[in-house]
């Protein structure tokens, strides 16, 4: 507590906060409102700029559609149910690919993290595959798996796999050597060692990998659907682009961004809850 007060001495901070040091400031107090306004100010600036540009017709509506036409398109997509149906199709694909990619990444990550032999065996190929962008894989994946859901799920799994793999390996390797020695002294079996020593140590890293993997999964599904699909948000974006509907394009891009942000937020909350024991 004294250390915190000393630290606060060096920061220009309201006296009220210093008096309350050690207690969390309520989110909707004065500072909470200020923080909220600060975080929304940049999006607001962008919106204002956008509206000015479209009102003054600085660029043709085709290139910069007005906020009104974007809002109208969003309303239409919601009314017809098109947005929900595309979104649900994309989300289902992501969940499938994320599950498989995450499971494989975790399994290989534990294996390669613990076994130096396994690491040497797999890392060459995995490192090579990792360098090839997902969209470069897509033509081959389509040839092998067709243009249905399978090819999209495979691409999403590939996108998810590597962040989870690498972070799991890192997490396993960062296990405190002291814990391992004690565990060995007590004669703990390998499976129990993984469960009780390696895994708890690797969990923070694994969750970082899962968060990164979720982002990659979402990007992969949109990319895959843009190239060969008959449904989903990526398909809708490609559709809008080819029919020169820039307002629809922007609506779909915003939806992609918002959903990606929400998924990340949910994962952050889960990570915080799961890792509470670490504090």
């Amino acid at each position, binding site marked *: 507590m004294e250390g915190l007060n000393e630290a606060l001495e060096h920061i220009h901070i309201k006296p009220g906060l210093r008096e309350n040091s050690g207690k969390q400031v309520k989110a909707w107090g004065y500072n909470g409102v200020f923080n909220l306004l600060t975080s929304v*100010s940049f999006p607001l600036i962008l919106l204002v700029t956008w509206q000015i540009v479209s*009102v003054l017709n600085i660029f*043709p509506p085709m290139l910069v559609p007005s906020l009104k036409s974007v809002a109208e398109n969003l309303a239409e997509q919601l009314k017809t149910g098109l947005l929900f149906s595309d979104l649900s199709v994309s989300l289902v694909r992501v969940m499938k690919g994320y599950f498989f990619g995450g499971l494989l990444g975790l399994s290989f990550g534990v294996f390669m993290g613990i076994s130096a032999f396994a690491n040497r065996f797999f890392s060459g190929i995995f490192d090579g595959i990792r360098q090839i962008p997902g969209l470069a894989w897509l033509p081959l994946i*389509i040839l092998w798996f067709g*243009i249905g859901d399978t090819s999209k799920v495979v691409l999403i799994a590939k996108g998810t796999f590597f962040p989870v793999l690498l972070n799991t390996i890192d997490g396993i390797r960062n296990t405190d050597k002291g814990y391992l020695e004690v565990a060995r002294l007590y004669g703990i079996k390998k499976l129990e060692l993984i469960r009780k020593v390696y895994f708890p140590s690797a969990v923070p890293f694994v969750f970082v990998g899962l968060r990164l993997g979720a982002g990659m999964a979402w990007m992969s599904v949109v990319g895959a659907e843009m190239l060969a699909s008959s449904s989903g948000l990526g398909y809708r974006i*490609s559709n809008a682009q*080819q*029919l*020169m509907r820039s307002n629809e394009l922007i609506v779909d891009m915003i939806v992609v961004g918002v959903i990606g942000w929400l998924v990340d937020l949910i994962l952050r909350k889960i990570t915080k809850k799961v890792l509470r024991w670490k504090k």
Partner: protein
Amino acid sequence: MKKMKSILAIMLVSIILLAGCGTGSESSSGSSSAGGNTKPAGSSVSDTSQKGEVHTLKYGFVDQGSGVATGLVGIAKDQGYFEEELAKVNAKIEIIPFTGAGPAINAALASKSLDAGAIGDVPALVAKASGIDTVMVAGGLADAPTYVVAQPGKGYKSLKDLKGKKVATQIGAYMQRVLYLMLENNGLKIDDIQFVNMTAKDAVNALAAKTVDAIVVSAAQSQTLASKGLGELLDSTEGHREWLNSTATVFNASYTKENPEVVKAFIKGLLRAREYAQKNPGDLRALQIKAGTPENVIDLVYPDLKNYSTLVEADKDVIGNLKSVAQFLKDNKLADSVVDIDAWYNPSFYNDALKESDSK
């Protein structure tokens, strides 16, 4: 702190005030040629000629994968007609292939990365209806049918058998309209099939890999697939004149206002190419071969090359076709309005080029 609060307050008020603005300021797309204040990205001939620099006309065409321009554009390029005519107005041409077809050329026109392009009727009118300020200066009518090619060995006898199946073609390209019309002729709608959006090149590969049940592509691509046993010709536009597609040579409207001499020089190049092609039809064939079309396919699609189109002007058939396409797009909600073809097509460049040219 007080300053920050003031700034945030001003921003909030601005949004509220500006949200009420702009309801009457959106330019209408489609029937008028207005497209807002378009600013040309490149310099005009009048600017560059004064500085002595050569102006480059950037022209895009739909590429089947080889990067080779065929038809009159290919002839004009190979024979140096573009080079000669454009040099007279201190200009040169850069001919750029687009495998993404009409929609890709539209995007380039919209961003002013291209000054002109040759595209199909559907993408040309979709672009115009969406507000891209283009002008059509030349046109042509399809000289070969468009086909629905189905996977071989599946027993498909007609389009009715494709109900519920995967059919691939490109959204926003002329093939999309052909597919809609063919489905309608067979008592089906677009929702009765699983429509897969793919470029023609990808669709050909997808059919060869048996990942789709049918595709809609050009005569050359269709016959190539059939000749290799990779597809069966299920239906075509043959015998249905109203299903034919047309092509449009379009320029950015601002470009035609600033560089009318360049536009005329371009058309003069095409007129010279037409005269040459009529005397040397073998060169048209040679270009198709160079572009990768098998010789037996060329002979199938263009027997004796008699039906190879060397049209430059948009005659009444082309205009009539474009009008029906414009209405089709609106009826099928592929465009928000019906493009006024008479206002969009500017025949003056062709007429002036013809008068000034030795070629007829």
